[in-house]
Every structure is written in structure tokens, then in C-alpha cells.
């Protein structure tokens, strides 16, 4: 039984912690991850030769990052295969590209710790060079110490908004403004829950204080109008809470509306899904220990429920202990209960964060007709609405077939949430009634050459 092949996809906090727990129990998990080094997005490491200190890279999370990196690197029972894209699941086999070469990895038990990506709403000018997501702006800084511009506007509704803005300010970039689409009263209403939730809420206040100390304006209740400029970004236009239009000069913009789970592999594995009203998105169904609806497939971290690094690490431990339990280890009960307590203890905070940075669905529903909605296929919101009027699709998959929105290289990971809102608005229904875009392999583009070469080698 202990010879079960256990494969973890994702080497962020959830996958790393799960691997450590399994290795600690004497198993040899395989960890597949796209990045050149472990850490995931939150604990992403610098390229070789870069020497910035942990506290510069990870701020308040430096201690946790250092501990996890050190433990993971030291454990030779873990078979960590970096540079590995898992692009399909068929039965109990993963199809991967490892350093650009096709490999099949078989498993008996699979833990998906695939993380999350930025959730965006297209706005006029968003495809102009110089517009980034908040997470993308942070990765540029964390990974290679690059800023996306000299004078940057940050906007949206996301815990990343004050965080990334203050990181940019600390790194020496000029932060032109921080513009929050959430009305001030909603933010204040969420404040008691944020501050009662332990350190996390207070950290947010620290970021705001740091911005204030540098006299960086932080505005609430704004509505984005456009990224201005000809060839690249030269400014940002928005309306304030009272409806007055403002323009700010800048050479880069970072925006985002929280995170969305990366669940494409869970979808290909056949896992069940549900619409989570709090996170306001489709999420993979998991039981109290991280088991999916497919036997042998487990879930942990932001790929399952958006909760951040600390929760992801606990969920990784929990899923690993569920795997051990399912392998016949009867001694995991107390540890599983402890994980459940720690996760449950953060429930109020999570709800408060969801209230403090709500997804502004009305913005998505009001995307102007001439604005590009699907950038992969270059389809405007107006063209999408016209295809809905003409052929009356009932869900986003049908709307995709009629309009090409979501058919391109990202398969709707970028434009999907906004497209669902537009369809729901046209049909006069709640967004969950518009359904969920089905994933198709490959979950990320794969080069034809890799397979043509492999076929030649085999011949």
C-alpha cells in the first residue's frame, strides 16, 4: 500500500508542505511544478545570482518563506521536478512537458495544489503595453527586482492593491495613486472582521500607513474609465465616487480584482464544482479534508479556495494527512483535527476580506461595446453582446462557441469572469446561471515541435 505513487502538482506553500508531511511519513512524493524553483507565486525565488534578502523579498512572510524553502530543499525523499508543465490528465496518467520534452507520469494518488491567478475585468485600453495585473507587477518585482514602470497607478479591489503599491513605493518606484473600486463604507463595514482576524488585518493597515507616510493618495469608490496613451500607457482616467472625471499621468498601470483559482487540471480529472458565493467564483468541491469528488484526487491551497499562503500551507498538510489516512494510517485524526481548527479559525477573516474587496460585477456588466473583451481572439464586448442577441446561448460554453470569447490561448482564464457577467446580464440571471467554461487540454499551450521530435526519436 505504501508503494502508492503519490504525485503533487504545484510547489507553492500547499504543495511544499504536503510533500514535507508525506516525506516525513516515509513516502517519496513526486512534486511537479512549472517554475524553475519551488516556492509558488507567493514564495517565488530569485533567479540564480540574485542576492536580495528574504525580508526585502517577502516582507512580513520572510520567516515563513525561509523555513519552508529550507525544509523543502533539505528533504531528499521528495522528488521535485521543476520546469514541468502538466498539460493533461487522462485516467491515472499526467501528460507533462519536462524541460520541453513530453513525459507521462502515472499516479495512484494525486494532490492538485495549482494555486491562483489574478482576476481581471477588461477596461478600455487594457491591452495597451504598460498595463499589468497586480500579481504580475508583484512577480516582476519579487522575481527579478524589476518595476513595471517609473510612475505607476494601482487600481482594483484586492488585498494585493495596498500590498503591491507599498512594495513598489519601498522599492523606489513612484506610486502615482492607489485607486480602490470598493466604496469606503463597504471597506469600513468589513474593518471589524479584518482586525479581529489576527495579524493579517493589521498588516493591511501597516501597508496603508506606509502609503500615507509617503503622501500617496488612496481613493475609494472609483470607477476605471481608460488606460490612456497612443503606443503605450501615458495616463489613467477614472471617475471618483461623486462621478467626477480625473486623469493621472503614468507610464504603467497595475490592476486586479482578487484572485481566481487555477482549477483546469481538476476539471480535466473530472472533479465536481460549485459556485462559491463568498469568493464569487466557481471552485472545486472538496470535503473537510481536501478530498475531491474523484477517488484518489486531493486538493489544497488557492487552487481550491482562495485563502492566501498561510491557509494554503495548512490545507497542504491537511490533504497530505488525508492521503496518509486513506493509505491506512489510523494515527492522523488528532493532526487532521488540528488543521481543521486552524483553518476554521480564519473563517471570519476570510469573509471580511471578501467583503472588503468585493468583485465589482456591475463594472464587468458595463464594459463598453468597443472595448476588447477577449484579447486572445480580439473580440469586443459589443461583438460578444451581438452574438448573444443573435443566437441566445444559455451558458458561457455555448457563448464561446458562437463568439470565440474564451477560445484562445488562455481558454478564458482572463476574460471568463467578465464574459460570464455580460452573458448573465443579457439573460437577466445570476452569474452562476451562466455556468463555467469547460477546460480542454492542453491547459496551457504546448509546442508542436516537442511532440514531433519525440515521435522521430521513437521511430
Amino acid at each position, binding site marked *: 500500500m505504501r508503494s502508492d505513487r503519490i504525485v503533487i502538482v504545484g510547489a507553492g506553500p500547499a504543495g511544499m508542505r504536503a510533500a514535507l508531511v508525506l516525506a516525513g511519513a516515509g513516502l517519496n512524493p513526486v512534486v511537479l511544478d512549472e517554475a524553475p524553483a519551488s516556492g509558488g507565486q507567493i514564495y517565488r525565488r530569485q533567479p540564480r545570482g540574485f542576492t536580495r534578502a528574504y525580508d526585502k523579498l517577502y516582507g512580513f512572510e520572510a520567516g515563513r518563506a525561509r523555513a519552508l524553502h529550507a525544509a523543502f530543499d533539505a528533504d531528499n525523499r521528495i522528488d521535485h521536478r521543476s520546469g514541468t508543465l502538466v498539460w493533461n490528465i487522462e485516467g491515472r496518467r499526467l501528460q507533462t512537458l519536462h524541460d520541453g520534452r513530453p513525459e507521462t507520469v502515472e499516479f495512484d494518488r494525486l494532490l492538485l495544489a495549482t494555486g491562483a491567478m489574478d482576476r481581471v475585468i477588461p477596461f478600455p485600453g487594457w491591452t495597451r503595453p504598460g498595463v499589468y495585473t497586480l500579481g504580475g507587477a508583484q512577480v516582476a518585482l519579487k522575481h527579478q527586482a524589476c518595476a513595471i514602470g517609473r510612475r505607476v497607478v494601482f487600481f482594483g479591489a484586492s488585498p494585493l492593491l495596498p500590498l503591491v503599491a507599498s512594495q513598489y513605493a519601498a522599492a523606489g518606484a513612484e506610486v502615482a495613486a492607489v485607486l480602490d473600486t470598493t466604496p469606503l463604507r463597504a471597506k469600513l463595514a468589513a474593518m471589524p472582521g479584518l482586525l479581529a482576524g489576527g495579524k493579517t488585518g493589521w498588516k493591511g493597515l501597516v501597508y496603508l500607513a506606509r502609503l500615507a507616510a509617503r503622501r500617496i493618495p488612496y481613493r475609494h469608490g472609483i470607477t476605471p474609465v481608460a488606460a490612456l496613451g497612443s503606443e503605450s500607457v501615458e495616463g489613467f482616467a477614472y471617475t471618483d465616487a461623486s462621478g467626477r472625471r480625473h486623469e493621472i499621468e503614468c507610464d504603467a498601470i497595475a490592476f486586479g480584482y482578487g484572485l481566481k483559482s487555477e482549477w483546469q487540471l481538476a476539471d480535466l480529472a473530472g472533479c465536481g464544482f460549485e459556485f462559491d458565493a463568498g469568493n464569487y467564483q466557481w471552485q472545486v468541491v472538496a470535503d473537510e479534508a481536501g478530498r475531491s469528488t474523484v477517488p484518489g484526487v486531493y486538493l489544497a491551497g488557492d487552487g481550491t479556495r482562495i485563502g492566501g499562503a498561510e491557509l494554503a500551507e495548512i490545507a497542504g498538510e491537511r490533504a497530505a494527512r488525508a492521503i496518509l489516512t486513506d493509505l491506512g494510517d489510523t494515527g492522523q485524526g488528532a493532526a487532521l483535527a488540528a488543521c481543521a481548527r486552524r483553518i476554521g479559525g480564519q473563517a471570519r477573516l476570510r469573509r471580511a476580506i471578501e467583503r472588503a474587496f468585493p468583485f465589482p460585477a456591475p463594472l464587468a456588466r458595463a464594459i463598453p461595446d468597443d472595448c476588447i473583451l477577449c484579447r486572445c481572439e480580439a473580440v469586443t464586448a459589443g461583438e460578444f453582446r451581438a452574438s448573444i442577441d443573435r443566437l441566445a446561448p444559455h451558458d458561457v460554453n455555448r457563448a464561446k462557441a458562437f463568439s470565440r470569447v474564451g477560445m484562445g490561448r488562455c481558454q478564458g482564464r482572463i476574460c471568463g469572469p467578465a464574459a460570464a457577467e455580460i452573458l448573465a446580464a443579457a439573460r437577466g440571471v445570476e452569474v452562476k446561471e451562466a455556468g463555467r467554461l469547460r477546460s480542454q*487540454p492542453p491547459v496551457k499551450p504546448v509546442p*508542436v515541435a516537442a511532440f514531433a521530435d519525440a515521435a522521430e526519436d521513437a521511430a
Partner: protein
Amino acid sequence: MTGHLDLDAAIIGGGTAGCAAALHLATRGLRVALFERRTVGSQASGVNFGGVREHGRDFAELPLSRRARRIWDRLPELIGSDGEFMATGHLKLARSDEQMASLEDFARGAADYGLAVELITGNRLRADFPWLGPRVVGASLCRSDGQANPRIVAPGFARAARQAGAQIFEHEAVEGALRDEGGFRLETERGRRVSARTLINVAGAWGAKVAAWFGESVPIEPQSPSMQVTEPLPYRLPVNIGVAGGDVYARQIPRGNVIFGGGRGWNDFGAITSRAGGGNVTQAMGRLTDILPWTRHVHVIRTWSGIEGYTPDEIPVIGPSDTTPGLIHAFGFSGHGFQLGPAVGEVLAELVFSGGSETPLAPFAIGRFTGAAAPVGAQGDGRDPIAAMQQGETR
């Protein structure tokens, strides 16, 4: 209970043929309803490669295919959309002398049907199609062929049919049907009861199941062609590409993506899900770079499939039932029904009105499979909806 419908014609299956039949019958004033278990054009009609070709067909299909080709030019007046049809031509490649001989055979035979096919070899092949790989030794070109967007064609016919007065019921499978003195009686999954003078079975991969309700046994195999699409590239493939042997095919749409296919994928017929298959996906990539070497450094961004019914001789069943007056079949298009669909709709309407068609249908007779017809109600999904209806049960 969703109520009772009294119809002249009931249609089972919302592919292009069914939607086109609904359009023509409704236009001529019949009370017609179409029942589709999912959404119109969601399987073979909607997720296929998008080839609109007469080139390389079984000669038995050519009269029907010739008729279809004329309709493709008239799609805008028929359904208010051109279905993104472009007469780009279809180029069929030979990678060996034997394959070239088979292309020559087809070109000679096609001439009898008035279909012009040019044979191209040697220097002209390289001059006219400089983007072909070195293994290609020759080709045949059918200039009148082309390509279209399958995702919008069946829905376009459905929309036109609705405007002409047909009722189209999606997400409503027909659970059983029988014929008595009064005509056909159907019951749907929503409990709707339908009576109709004529019943049209255009249920694709499910067509054999419907035929079995009337004691006609057709060996249909549900298969799922493996389809792929690349990221957009500069537009340079102005013609739809196939190969002798059929193991790979490709076309490029003006926005730049190369759509290609080859091999069979995977399906779960019961759950109605399908996917392009792993081994076949990578093999088709190798074959693509063989004929079009410039696709080598391209990324595949998506794969997909659908469920289609294949007959043993890979030509469809089209025509009246041998057991049941008023029942008409058209299914089992075996992976090449997209081009034919609009003509099949016309033929079905002719059969309803006159009992015959101007297009020769003899090769498609169901009788070629039904030497030993099974008894009514013996086939199907285990339960016996016909017996249940005869006993007046409600679900």
C-alpha cells in the same frame, strides 16, 4: 408534464440535417418540432473540422454532395448567415506514388459527376504550394471546395427554422417513440407527449437507438475525431488540406489559427462527453509538421472532440424506414456529414412531401444493414419506453 403537442412532423436530433429539415418543413407550412437532448449543433455538426468538401468522397455520396455545395453558396439567403463559408478549395496530398494513384482514380471518377479535380505534381506542386513539406509527392485540387465555421451553422439553421415557425426544444431528449393507427407517439424526458404524422430520425450517433425502437438494427459505432487548434500565425494556407489515407487534415482561418485533426479521441457515450485522445493528439502533431513543416514551432492552444456515429461502410443511412411507414432516417454520417447537412435537410423535406427525392438515395438504404431486424422494443437502453407508453404509464 409539459403538455401535449400535435404535429405534422417530429424531428429527433438537432444537427444541421435536422435543423435544415425543420426549416424546409416549417417554410412549407407544416407543424414541426425538433427535439435535441443537448443544444443544437453540439456534437458532430458543431465540433467537426469545418471542411466543406466533395473531394475524395465515396462516389455514392457525390450527387448529394453536389447538391449540398450549391446550397452552401446560398446560405445567407437561407439562414441569414454565411456560416463563415469560404470556397478556398481543397487540396488532397499524396505522400507516396500509390497514394497519388488513388488521387488520380478519384479525379477520373469524379468527372462523371461533373466535379472538376486537378492533378498537380512536379515543379508545379512546388511552385503553387511552396509551403508543403518535401515528403509530399503530388496532390489533387478541388477548387470549388472550401471551409466554414461548424459552430454557427446548425444554430443558424435552427434560428431560421424558428423564424419560419418550427419549434426547437433543446435539453429535451425523446425517451421513446412508437407508431399506432393514429401516427407516431413520442414522449420526452420532460414528460411532454407528442403525436406526429411523420417522424424524422436525424439523431447522429444515437440514430441506431431510435431505429431500434422500430425494429431496425444498424451497427453504429460512436467515435470521436481528435481536433486541435494552434495559436494564430500569419495567414499563408489559403486552401483546405487533406491527405490520401486521411490520417491528418488542416486548414487555416483568416484570423491565423491553424485547425487540424487526425486520429480518434476518447468518449463516454453514456455520459455524452468526449475529448481528443493523448496518443493520437501527439501523432497528429507529427503528421502535421510532416506536410506543413512551418507549423513546427507553433503552439497548440486547445484540443476538442465530439461524438459521431460511424457505419461499417462509412456512408450514412438516408431514406424511409423498411418497417414503419412515415419514419425517415438520416444518420451515421461517419465523420463527413458537415458538408452534406444542408442538402440532407432538403432531401428529408422532399421525402416527407413526395415520398421520393430527386437525389439518388439507393446506396444509403437502411436495408443494407437490417437483414435480420430485431423485434420492436428489444434494443435500446435497458428500460422499455415503448411498452411503458403502450401501457399508458407516466414518468
